[in-house]
């Protein structure tokens, strides 16, 4: 075997090890129910804004505190706390992807991504990343 081949093998092996060991970084899409079974673990929840319940953002009290309620794909409604400013146009969002973790009753959100319908086309509009 040539030296280059050996080095190649070592490099590829190292790369595979690193990549596989970092699979742990990958998150999963969960529901509020399955997220609450693993409190504190950061994950993704896809849901919709629950418009029947009030949103709360008062920058005078705390510019980094926005709460709202979201319904996940299985229909459960949960309180969401976002440590950041209220995302633009969240009222009109069709779908919300929330990054965060369950603590107590609430879902603590570190990032919000929204899908908003514009009048004529479906856009992906993204807002807010607290991290």
């Amino acid at each position: 075997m040539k030296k280059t081949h050996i080095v190649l093998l070592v490099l590829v092996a190292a790369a595979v090890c690193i990549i596989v060991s970092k699979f742990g970084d990958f998150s999963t899409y969960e529901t509020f129910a399955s997220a609450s079974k693993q409190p504190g673990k950061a994950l993704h929840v896809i849901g919709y804004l629950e418009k029947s319940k009030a949103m709360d953002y008062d920058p005078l009290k705390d510019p980094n505190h926005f709460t709202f309620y979201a319904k996940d794909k299985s229909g459960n409604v949960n309180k969401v706390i976002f440590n950041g400013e209220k995302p633009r146009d969240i009222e009109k969002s069709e779908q919300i992807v929330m990054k965060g973790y369950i603590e107590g009753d609430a879902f603590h959100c570190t990032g919000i991504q929204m899908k908003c319908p514009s009048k004529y086309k479906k856009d992906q509009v993204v807002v807010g990343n607290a991290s």
Partner: protein
Amino acid sequence: MDTQFIGEHLWPGRLGHFFVITTFVGALFSAFSYWRAAKTEKTDAYNSHSWQLLGRNGFVLHAASIIGIFFALYYVIANHLFEYHYAWEHSSLALRSKYLLSCFWEGSEGSFMLWTLWNSILGLIVMSTSKTMETRTMAIISMVQACLASMLLGFYFGPDVKVGSTPFMLLRDSMQGAPIFQSANYMNFIKDGNGLNPLLQNYWMVIHPPVLFLGFSSTLIPFAYCMAALWKGDYESFVKPTIRWSLFSGAVLGTGIMMGGAWAYESLNFGGYWAWDPVENASLVPWLIMVAGLHTLLVYKATKRSLIITFTLLLLSHVMIWYSTFLTRTGVLGKTSVHAFTGEGSALYWHLIVVLGLLVVACIAFMAARWKGLPRIKTEEATSSREFWMFIGSIVLLLSSIQISITTSIPVWSPLVKWMTGKDVAPPVDPIAHYNNIQVWVAIIIALLSATILFLKFKQSDAKTVLKRFGITGGIALLLALFIGITQEIRAWQYALLLFSCSYAIVANLYYAFVVQKGRLKQLGPSVAHLGFGMLLLGILLSSYNKQVISVNTLGVIIPFGKSDAENAKESRDNVVLFHNTAVALGDYYATYRGDSTSKSDPRTFFRVDYQRIDSATKKVEESFTLYPDAFVNPKGQEGLISSPASKHYWNKDIFTYVTSYLMPKDKGSFIDHTVKEGDTIFVGSGYLVFRGFNRDVKDPRYTPQEGDVAVTADLAYYDMKGQKGMLRPIYYIHDKYDNQITDTLQKEGIMARLEKILPEQKSALIQVKQSKPTDDYIVLKALLFPYINLVWLGVIVMVIGFLISLRNRLAN
């Protein structure tokens, strides 16, 4: 019967569509002719030459047609012909003319057109310079061009199958069935277009996409030369032009990517120039592979080794451009990308899959057909040789791009995993930490190699000289790294290692350029490019590692770079409220919000924020400056802000600020009714108003008297504790039987008054007054500090200059 529509301009569209078809047919014709020319090259030179001429004509027709499409589309947009869907969707009457070109790349069709245009211009250059390789390279280029041009066709096969999407689609065809198009004069109702996305109304967005697309196009040429070399079985004549084009590609694509970074940094509020976003990664990967391929090609030129890996890398680079188009334009990334891209539906999705499939199959088939005959060298290269380490560096770059691609492609492969295991995989919660933790090792290795390989010689190096140079430069680099590491407090050990690698890359490349090469321009290319790369890495390290959120009220600084302190990141709180005229401490500065302003020529609202740095001991103002972060308030009928940052640039750091929230003027306070007679007093928060009576003598620039009008003002004098401070004269007038009111404002005190009604029986007036409370007037601001960010830009510029020096020297040869 068909409706005869009134007021449409159909000829630019018809002409444009004609050009679309000739573009496609021209490319196909050219590909076929060049293919025939290549086939008959050896057997029938006369015939081959005729086919070659036909191929050239076909390609010129193709290129001319794209220019035709360009001008037809430009005409449609510049003349605001909103009967065309493209103009209606992406432009508006209010759009400033300097942004007209940006409309081209807001839409998918326009970007494909731009890409085709660049390809065809590069194709024309290849046509006139490639000599013996012409027939085959041009056949490949024309074939790719046919694939690209098919993206613009907009042909329907039956109601559901659509091939391509034309920019000359009429509005009434794109929204069939909408009731407005029942009327022949529908154009009378379509007064204005949808307008350009405010984020694209920025000078970076005028220049970044064309450069990036030129970068995309530039990868086609090495691809075509490699395919041609395989096709012909000639592994010599492709080397020189491919090196030149790879250098060109490295320079242009690199510039395009970092211009995107500069755009993000200057005008988006992502809070940085690089976020490992899928769209950014998608253009980085082809560049990494192109650079790797360039290096193995240099190895091949010098030693005849590494041919197979060279072909693999250079072909892959262009294929990855198509893959990145697939990722970013079809909406597969969907919920994972922060870029506002629109999915174009399943037509484009399958179209791109077919093209990608064709390219991959063609690459594999060409390689497989020549596999046995590809020259290989049996002997081993010396460990002290340059080619050995260049090969390793290229492999590391390839592995790096594989890792980036795997994570970026999560939405592509996650359905498979879900089907197998039931787990719905999502991207990492903290993608920046994920990529940084892995890619830091790539950066360390590449930085070390980038300087080391220049000291080594092809085939065999003189160990003594090399070791001496390592010793000198390594020693200096260690001192430099220690100095920077201690002053900049870089504690994480892997980043300390990266700091040493960067320092070494900088010191050793400078040493090589000036001591070994004696600064001769002819040989400076590699060392300058590598020097720039080292500076870029150092800039990234310093600006990200010590990036500071200075708008934090609570303690705890959040740095996602290297310190994956997840708990800390989760609780990041980096917004701060600035009340009007109230100073707030931001890091070393005191920031004071001084109010907002708008102008007629600009749709944005500007927020003035004054900054002062005050010496804590002497209380002397050491420095003061003003920043104007701006935002589109309620753009395109949406609620809220699209804000752009404003930065204060120092040589060694940037203060980067943007507005995240703001109370709209209409929401500030509310009017309160007061029925008053002459001499009555109205109390407001800060003082009182005295109603001095009506005044028939209306002198106000906002009101132009017309015949038959009745106009009157209510004169209100404002007093505070110290005396009279101003007059308010709200106007009430009757015009054409209707009553109208013009509100008057006392700007300084924030008082607004309206004369709502006159009550003649009671000889009194209904006056509405409001005063905005000081607490109503505020902005929410985010402020970041990026140390040594200029090193990032300088590094990129130096690196690109290095590419260009190499290119110039190789063209001169």
